[in-house]
């Protein structure tokens, strides 16, 4: 940061209230251990992350479906240098997995040593509540 002459800007704390009314079932589902997606009743496209409106046919009539929990890893990375709000976390692994419904999920991958993680590997998708109290989901070792 500034080693040159400078003045400090005014300090401001910003926290946004992000609306989740239209995907409330998803957030509630996570607390009950379920990962839900939406499916367009008109064109049958499945959406994850869940969407209340269909970008493909522009219909807004969706049904909720529960996703299978078996995923295949398509790619991953281990994040060592972390942003401000993740400073208190240990380095984490992020992966993208494909589900049999055809959708992909991006989430943390836990329960493996980094050297064990390979593209093409089978993992399990689970819903959970994070240590910070946020409903979330992650990939982990299949039983």
């Amino acid at each position: 940061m500034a080693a040159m002459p400078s003045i400090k800007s005014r300090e401001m704390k910003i926290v946004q209230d992000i609306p989740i009314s239209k995907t409330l079932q998803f957030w509630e589902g996570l607390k009950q251990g379920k990962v839900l997606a939406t499916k367009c009743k008109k064109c049958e496209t499945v959406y994850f992350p869940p969407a209340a409106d269909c970008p493909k046919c522009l219909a807004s009539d969706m049904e909720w479906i529960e996703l299978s929990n078996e995923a295949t890893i398509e790619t991953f990375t281990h994040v060592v240098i972390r942003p401000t709000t993740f400073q208190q976390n240990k380095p984490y692994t992020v992966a993208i997995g494909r589900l049999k419904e055809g959708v992909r999920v991006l989430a943390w991958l836990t329960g493996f040593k980094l050297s064990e993680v390979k593209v093409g590997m089978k993992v399990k998708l689970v819903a959970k509540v994070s240590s910070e109290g946020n409903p979330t989901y992650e990939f982990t070792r299949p039983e």
Partner: protein
Amino acid sequence: MRKVAIIGVGSSKIGVRNDVNVAELAFEAFKPSVDDAKIAPKDIEFVAVGSTGAGAWYEELLPAVVSAEYCGLTGAGLVRCEAACASGSAAFSTAYWAVASGQADIAAALGVEKMREIDTPTMMEWIGRAGYYLWEFHNFGLTFPAYYALYATAHMAKYGTTEEDLALVAVKNHKYASMNPIAHLQNRITVDDVLSSMVIASPLKLFDCCPTSDGAASIILASEEKVKELNIDAPVWVAGVGYASGTANMSKRLDYVGLEASVLASQKAYKMANVTPDLLDVAVVHDCFTIAEILAYEDIGLCKKGEGAKLLREGQTEIGGKIPVNIDGGLKAKGHPIGATGCSMIYELAKQLREETVEKSRQAPMKNYIALAHNVGGTGHYCYVTILRR
């Protein structure tokens, strides 16, 4: 539509520029560009500004108006363009269309970014949020190095690209940056330096990443009639502009071994310019991380899919090879002042086409006098490709 030429270019020194605020930095690039074009600010009817960090990385919310006032441009038509890391190219094409359509005879594209007024974790937080905050950052803390690391892992798994291959991009680009006095990182490095640098997001290490930079670049565009009227001796013509976009969610991309937006944008630009990749004399591509340069070779058709690393290993993208790429040091070493990068790419290509790079050691030999700029925004969220011709 009218023919449009670049008649003036200017750039600031890129790097940690805590000696200037955003408007002062813009001025450093703007002044030489109007001098180059031999015009005055009042001759410019329309200005498109590329800047991404307004109000976040630096204090001003409306950098276009503060920069325009400071550069004597108040009164001109004015807009700020956002296309993440391709904001500079978005500004360039907006200014291009203003002239091509006949709305303005002279327009300016001004890219300016200040990234170093905040600490590194906060910078990584802001950039990381620039994917899909709700679905990818909120719970998972994706950073930009991590996003591109996802591409690197997939490309390595599918095509056998190695960490050494990635390192070669950094070695090449640092080499050319060492010959470029405006570059942020001017040190030469070795493959071992890259491999032994700290892991940021595996498999990417510190030297696989572009630095966070402050910088500005300014481009003056004019119609064919104005070019004649002003007696411009070396106009550089805009032959093609192509653009496309990709999904906000990384999980919805087609695959992780290329950027669909780059493929589409380059095809559009080649078609408009009526050129093929083999006719290019020089290219600048979006190498925010080393893997991105390899993806770019493949996506814009400099080689076949999966053969990017081979092209690099053979030295074909060095001066003397088939197609010199990023011989200004690239984002990797010249630096990546996000919203300024697109204009900085055009600055470099105009200098190359006019055969007036200050440093003769990094002048690409010109056969067809055709050059290409490839600028990605986000993780493939936006792509702009521009083809220039002398």
